[in-house]
């Protein structure tokens, strides 16, 4: 951490009493090239999603029966699919659905898993037992099957599919948060916080939560990628996104059977999914390495 100290020193000596710098986290993150490249890539993907109508060369839903399964050309940069729709345009528009769907699923997983994990780990006792047995039951189902059941109950739509994925992933978040909370709870600084007059709620929010963010962020970003894949699976089964709209997974699903005749759409969709998932994971690693808890070996 000598770099941080050196970087902060000139700023601080200029004023005798300065407030804490706005974010030393951002500075550390910016010094991590892998994470920065991933962040830039992901930002590009997000920008593509935002400006899809301006970037897409064709209407993603317009089919042309005379141009079925065309190889890449000036007209169709990534070729056309089995209904003669432009694959590039579809991928560009699909980024909107895919990104929002993953964020939605992970947000639901976090919204359920984080508070329950914190409570379960911090309170312990019978509260923990009840939450964890429920958790075990949920985890013992195969994730996709459970999602299929939930979508079956709620009706097929992308929102319902991602709610289902979020529910299915909540136990994973919960487990990670609970495990970290259990170890953080034993730390002397928790007792010390109590000795300075912190109540339970404050201890959880101010002292436990920041110290479980490392593993949590990693888990959440991994889940972003997995949610993207799960969405692809559900959409492939017709339980997620409904035609004519498309997500990356749906495009991959429709292109896959024609891979022998026209490999480019499959590869393109697969590549987009892989790169995005990789970006999420690498950003997660970058965040983990940059948050304010520096207790790894050698520090």
């Amino acid at each position, binding site marked *: *951490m000598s770099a941080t100290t050196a970087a902060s020193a000139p700023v601080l000596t200029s004023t005798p009493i300065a407030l804490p710098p706005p974010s030393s986290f951002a500075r550390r993150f910016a010094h991590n090239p892998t994470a920065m490249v991933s962040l830039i890539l992901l930002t590009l993907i997000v920008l593509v999603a935002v400006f899809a109508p301006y970037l897409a060369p064709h209407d993603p839903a317009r089919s042309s029966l005379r141009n079925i399964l065309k190889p890449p050309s000036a007209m169709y940069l990534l070729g056309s699919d089995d209904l003669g729709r432009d694959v590039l345009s579809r991928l560009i528009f699909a980024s909107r659905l895919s990104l929002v769907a993953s964020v939605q699923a992970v947000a639901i997983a976090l919204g359920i898993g984080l508070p329950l994990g914190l409570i379960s780990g911090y309170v312990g006792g019978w509260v923990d037992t009840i939450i964890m047995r429920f958790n075990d039951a949920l985890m013992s189902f195969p994730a996709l099957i459970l999602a299929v059941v939930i979508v079956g109950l709620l009706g097929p739509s992308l929102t319902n599919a991602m709610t289902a994925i979020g529910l299915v992933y909540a136990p994973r978040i919960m487990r990670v948060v609970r495990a970290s909370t259990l170890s953080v709870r034993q730390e002397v600084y928790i*007792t010390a916080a109590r*000795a*300075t*007059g912190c109540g339970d709620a404050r201890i959880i929010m*101010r002292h436990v939560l920041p110290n479980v963010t490392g593993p949590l962020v990693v888990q959440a970003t991994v889940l972003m990628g997995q949610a993207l894949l799960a969405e692809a699976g559900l959409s492939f089964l017709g339980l997620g996104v409904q035609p004519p709209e498309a997500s990356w997974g749906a495009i991959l699903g429709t292109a896959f059977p024609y891979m022998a005749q026209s490999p480019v759409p499959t590869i393109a969709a697969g590549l987009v999914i892989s790169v995005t998932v990789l970006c999420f994971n690498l950003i997660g690693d970058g965040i983990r390495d940059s948050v*304010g808890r520096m207790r790894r070996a050698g520090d």
Partner: protein
Amino acid sequence: MAFTNDAALLEVNDLVVQFPSPNGWLTVVDKVSFSVGRNDIVCVVGESGSGKSVTMQAAVGLVQPKGGRVTSGSVHFEGQELIGMGNRQLNRIRGNAIGFIFQEPMSSLNPAYTVGEQIAEVVRRHRGASRRDAWKRAVEMLDRVNIASAASRAHDYPHQFSGGMRQRVMIAMAIACDPKLLIADEPTTSLDVTIQSLILELIRELQRESGMSVLFITHDLGVVADIARSVVVMYGAQVVESASVEDLFRAPKHPYTGGLLEAMPQVALERGHDPVAIPGTVAQAHAWPSGCRFNPRCVFRQDGVCTTAPIVLSRDDHGLVRCARSSELRGVLAGMGIRQLGSAA
């Protein structure tokens, strides 16, 4: 004498604390009583496992979250009963009127916040100070505990400090709200001797300036001689002796205290022999011997007298002692005492 002080700041009476174990509830603090006057420094001495830390933590309600329970006794702080007080009220006292310093400076600061933020948080919560004022106070406190260039160091995270520095930060946090009582739980144990004496000097200096009382837990008699005004010696979850620091060192009344003095290298050196260790180890809480809990290790043990009935804490004109043979051993034990207190420190 601490025990006769009516206007005591902190008065612990017959405190009993238990923790769960596979063998049922274990009594780890057994009817412990002592008091701390205003502007006083009291040391609680004892081996690991004698119940000294738990006593202090129980006094301010810190054992319940760890699974322990206070089964009886009372703790009066400025006339208020702390045992059974709700957490909401206790939280107004903890960190405000009572500061706490822990044994492990390496792990008692939250790694997620800068030290300045951690001190400022305590000030903001208890004093309702603005962010800026609280930060100012944090820097002021860091400066007060002799941290060089406090204004910039306040922005550093705990891992950027050494053990001694972290303990200074802990002290700064504990005294940031001008507590009336500072409870220091072996604050120097994990530090090297040089740093230890600097920290002791700092605590003494802060005490002198502010007039706060200090309750100092230690297992180092050298530290006791250095800092204490009165001493409570604990063994096997009980108080075995209590006296002013001069009386305790000059004429110990309990064989255990005598043994502790004999085991001090400084004392042994002065007398020209090797330190004499107390034989054996402390019994486990579930297996206290009957009679005097120290009897299996006591060189003055007399079967029948020491090994049957529990020994009561008796008072004489110099303090309290829990020994069946204290009056007959007075002469022998006094011989173990130290004339010059300074030589022990």
